[in-house]
């Protein structure tokens, strides 16, 4: 076992094709990512082609990501690919890595920033103290950054299990459960929860009450008031 593994591990980090969605350390804007006519992964090159066809939907981006990871049969290669994605994630500076932005429930520390841009699309930034978690965040952001809020909210955690990598993600085809350490799921759920709040804020369905140091945000639902989850509310500046 050790001989085989040694040889695998000694492979240099850039021994195979670069990540699908990022050609180099500098991040490629999503609008520049193109789908080639031939959808095979190997022939998929990412940027700056002439006469390109833009990737527009999250489902397409997800499909490509899933097939990219599924093409890597060795676990070590999938981990390497995640680390490649981690390397191109811009991350957050110290001021962004604060308790208020933490994603609850991850085995590692993950910080997530969620804003809605002027076009009403969701923009995400994230960082982690773990390289693998950072890779997860990078993949999620690659798929969901710039998406319509409805697309973010419609994204299923099960879709990620196909990628077959990482803590809490099943290796036998069973959908990943609500494991306490499932970074994929926790980051996605945080993205969705915070998106939902921002949508409600935009639509004026939420108002805030300041009581002492605690912000209580009330949201009218069916003529009653529903108290929203506190961590989601920290992202809404009133």
């Amino acid at each position, binding site marked *: *076992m*050790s001989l085989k*593994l*040694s040889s*695998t*591990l000694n492979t*240099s*980090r850039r021994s195979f094709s670069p990540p699908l969605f990022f050609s180099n350390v500098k991040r490629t804007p999503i609008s520049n990512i193109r789908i080639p006519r031939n959808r095979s992964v190997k022939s998929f090159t990412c940027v700056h082609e002439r006469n390109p066809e833009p990737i527009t939907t999250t489902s397409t981006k997800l499909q490509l990501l899933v097939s990219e990871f599924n093409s890597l049969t060795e*676990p*070590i290669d*999938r*981990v*390497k690919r995640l*680390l490649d994605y981690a390397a191109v994630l811009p991350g957050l500076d110290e001021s962004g890595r604060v308790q208020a932005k933490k994603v609850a429930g991850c*085995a*590692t*520390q993950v910080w997530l920033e969620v804003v809605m841009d002027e076009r009403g699309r969701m923009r995400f930034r994230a960082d982690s*103290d*773990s*390289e*693998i*978690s950072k890779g997860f965040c990078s993949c999620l952001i690659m798929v969901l950054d710039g998406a319509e809020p409805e697309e973010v909210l419609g994204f299923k955690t099960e879709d990620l299990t196909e990628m077959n*990598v*990482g*803590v809490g993600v099943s*290796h036998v085809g069973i959908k990943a459960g609500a494991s306490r*350490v499932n970074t994929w799921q926790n980051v996605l759920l945080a993205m969705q929860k915070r998106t939902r709040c921002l949508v409600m804020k935009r639509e004026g369905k939420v108002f805030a009450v300041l009581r002492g140091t605690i912000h209580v945000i009330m949201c009218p639902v069916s003529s009653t008031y529903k108290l929203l989850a506190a961590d989601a509310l920290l992202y809404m500046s009133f």
Partner: protein
Amino acid sequence: MEAVVPKLASFNLLNPKSKSKSAIRRFSSALCVSSSPSVTSTDSVSLGHITRPDFPILHQEVYGSKKLVYLDNAATSQKPIAVLKALQNYYEAYNSNVHRGIHFLSAKATDEYELARKKVAAFINASDSGEIVFTKNATEAINLVAYSWGLSNLKSGDENEDHLFVFLASGYKAYKDTGFWPKYISVILTVAEHHSAIVPWQLVAQKTGANLKFLNLNDDESPDLDKLKEMLSRKTKLVVIHHISNMLASILPIEEIVHWSHDVGAKVLVDACQSVPHMVVDVQGLDADFLVASSHKMCGPTGIGFLFGKSDLLSAMPPFLGGGEMISDVFLDHSTFADPPSRFEAGTPAIGEAIGLGAAIDYLSTIGMQKIHAYEMELAKYLYENLLSIPNIRIYGPKPSEHVQRAALCSFNVENIHPTDIATLLDQQYGVAIRSGHHCAQPLHRYLGVNASARASLHFYNTKEDVDEFIHALNETVSFFNVFK
């Protein structure tokens, strides 16, 4: 039913003369056999090698082709065939509710359930099986003490008629010192406690106004017992302390701690989750007031743990949960309650699980807890020494020496690599299962200035080869991440 109960865990029931030619019985034959460890005795083959055939789960490959190396025993242990068979036998042959029906199956189930209680009592040398309360797990056992004993004994004492008298007669300072005033009543815990031993007391302290005081670590990174002696006073009502730390691997001298605590009138609750599965624990020798442990960490099923409480304490405690089984008589406006342990076992208990726990205790007792402890000490040393060879590693807890023994687990961090990244690669690339995270000890991690750590924890069915494979895999993993940075 006549109960045959091994009296103390340390008894080795094996016949030293009956040396088996083949130390390791074939797995297939072990399946057909019963309740004792596969092998008899041998000097040349380690206890790990001898007992591994009893644990079918260990003989598998994960992710298709990677041999499983299971080093997450502090989280939960694996179960020997004897325990699996006991569970199966219960459901196949005599599944029935206990303490109720008069029919054959119910009588048999009740006998076996109560026999399991006797086995637990004998295993930790309790003087009477009535001192053993079955709970869902150790967490529930601690909550039971917190809500039942804690709510009654950590409260203000308003109803105490001596209250005003003491104040008037002895003055403010003496009154404070009596500990009657809730503000001055305290519970001492260590920063190294498991969340399960901290949170219930926080909840109870909120209700009663008692103070929680936390004992820090000393320079050797084990709880500072000299400081504990200073902290103890007449105001201390309870000391909550672990026997073996699930992160630091430190082994505490509970007997002395109990002695100091009793000197000031404080009770002691021992979290023995990491000690009962690995060494001889004698509650009478320790003189502990309460002691909790968990079945699933000692080769038994999940869903059951136990509380040991001295009988006079249990008898004076009000019920925790209400329901069937725990009552004496129920009227519409009130009820009277059964004596312990039934008083604390509301509803149908985990019958099969209790019986499985009994089978696990038989299994461990047949090997002998002294033998298990001795072997694990050897493994602990081997693990620690080999782990030190990893570059830039930081192992938490006391350094082993002539006077300091560590349990067979190591929590560690490698500089600039997240422990979860290490654990992920060890798992996916090498089939080595270790834990990463805060191990339900966030205050301790905060105290040590880290957010998370990795932990490899062993049990008697692990071998030096397991450690070798782990160290090899860890070395490669560290190189991998360092190259990748």
